[in-house]
């Protein structure tokens, strides 16, 4: 376990050294605060539009951080040839994969904590209302979403040729699921025939990442989600993350490194 943690630690340190998170956090804060300063019919307590903009920026930033960080890990180790001394420690390829996963995921969760702290501050200051349980649920579901995306990206990074293609393809898949995942069954029912069956099969096979996007509930101050639902989502996300990691490890195990 300590080997996995050591590999993860290196990933987190690299994340702290890089400027991506700071830049994204700065941009999110700047855009949110600029929009927050707009005079809307003289009412300073109108907050929902600001919550929506801020959460949208947080989601975009989290997807960028998760995919960009995970896509580089294995190819960068290969390119700089640091993978050889790492595997000679001895560290197994499964430990490398798990270490990279936990490192990327922890880095995402840490950056999410910063983003959500800022969101809480902005929202609470505007609305004078602090639904901390709801915010924690949104944060946790977002963290589980990042786990699935990181695992999917790691799998992509050992299957695809270059980090750029991994970032593009995983980005398109994640965006596609977020936008269309919930509606595929309706499209399948309307399409019918072989294409309908194919869409239906895709609907049941894909990880439903849109479940983890509970922005509308947060923006419009809906009551907190049932904890059983949160537990189900966590298990579902863990299962898919595990599946992607096993697939990534299976490919990485047979991969020629030189």
């Amino acid at each position, binding site marked *: 376990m300590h080997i996995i943690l050591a590999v993860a630690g290196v990933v987190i340190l690299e994340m702290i050294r890089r400027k991506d998170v700071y830049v994204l956090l700065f941009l999110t804060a700047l855009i949110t605060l600029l929009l927050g300063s707009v005079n809307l*019919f003289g009412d300073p307590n109108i907050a929902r539009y600001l919550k929506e903009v801020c959460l949208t920026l947080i989601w975009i930033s989290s997807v960028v951080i998760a995919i960009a960080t995970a896509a580089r890990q294995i190819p960068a180790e290969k390119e700089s040839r640091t993978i050889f001394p790492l595997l000679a420690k001895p560290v197994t390829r499964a430990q490398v994969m798990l270490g990279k996963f936990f490192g990327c995921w922890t880095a995402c969760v840490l950056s999410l904590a910063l983003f959500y702290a800022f969101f809480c501050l902005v929202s609470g200051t505007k609305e004078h209302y602090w639904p901390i349980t709801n915010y924690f649920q949104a944060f946790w579901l977002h963290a589980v979403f990042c786990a699935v995306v990181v695992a999917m990206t790691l799998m992509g990074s050992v299957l695809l040729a270059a980090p750029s293609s991994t970032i593009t393809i995983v980005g398109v898949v994640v965006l596609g699921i977020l936008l269309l995942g919930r509606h595929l069954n309706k499209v399948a029912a309307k399409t019918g025939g072989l294409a309908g069956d194919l869409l239906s099969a895709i609907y049941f096979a894909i990880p439903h990442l849109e479940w983890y996007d509970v922005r509308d509930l947060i923006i419009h101050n809906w009551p907190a989600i049932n904890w059983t639902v949160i537990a189900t989502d966590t298990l579902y996300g863990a299962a898919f993350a595990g599946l992607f990691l096993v697939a990534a490890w299976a490919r990485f195990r047979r991969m020629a490194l030189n």
Partner: protein
Amino acid sequence: MNANNSVLDAAESVFGRPWIHIVMLFGLAFILSTLIHPEISAFHARRPDSGDPLASILGDGRKLFANHFYVKADVYFHSGYYPTIFDNRESHQTAHMAEDAGVAEGKNTGDEEHFLGKSSDWIDAHSRKHFPSVHTHLGEDSPDGRKNAEREILPWLKFSAKLDPNKIETYTVAAYWLRRTGADGEAEAFLREGLRANPDSVEILFELGRCRYDAKDVEHARNLWALAWRRWQQQEVGKPAEQQNRFIAAAILMHLARLEHAAGDINQCIRCLETLLPLKQNPDEILKRIADVKAGLPLTAE
């Protein structure tokens, strides 16, 4: 010869220096800008929406965004429970915020409560626990029950008006909800902003009349509604009946009738109701009102 040479040498020594080239270029640029600037200014002044950076960047495409923000306001009115392009949208053809404000004729059919239908599978059923799936309206049964929550729709209406100043409904809807939440001054100011962009708008004049009537400025309200009615006649009388906006005409005449009744001018009230008679699909109701007013009974609200 020597003198000529020394002049040339001096000129060469001055013009050969790099800074003199920069000064000359700067001077040339300044002269050119004074020549070109009036032409450019005149050209910009001829363009509609000159000085609006959004219009310059987006062109007519900004109307698409304006419509998107208008719908977004209605999404907020429902606290996020709203049909997507994949759902049955029959119950949301007219924005509910406009229908409830009485500024648009409702064309909605179908079930607004259950447009999602029954869940088709366990994924669909579980998915519905992650987004709003209960029909509510802000100010009536909003999920957090906050006072004046209706104002949350206003930012999107303001952005919509900024992007498309000719979308009349944006002003009238925003003005209604502003008035409802006690911001009468802001409502009137926003309507006047809309009137500047759309000086012939019957709807904005009518809504301004409502603002003045609420402010107990009856005389001003009467003038505004009378003007709105004249404008309606100018714009709509020549059109075929099915193309006329009779909804707004009925609203103007009914408000005028009510105003005159409250002011004690029963004859004028009856005249307004009689003018309204041919515009209504169901004239029996108006005939009953005329009879009530003639009998000295109060004019009930529609």
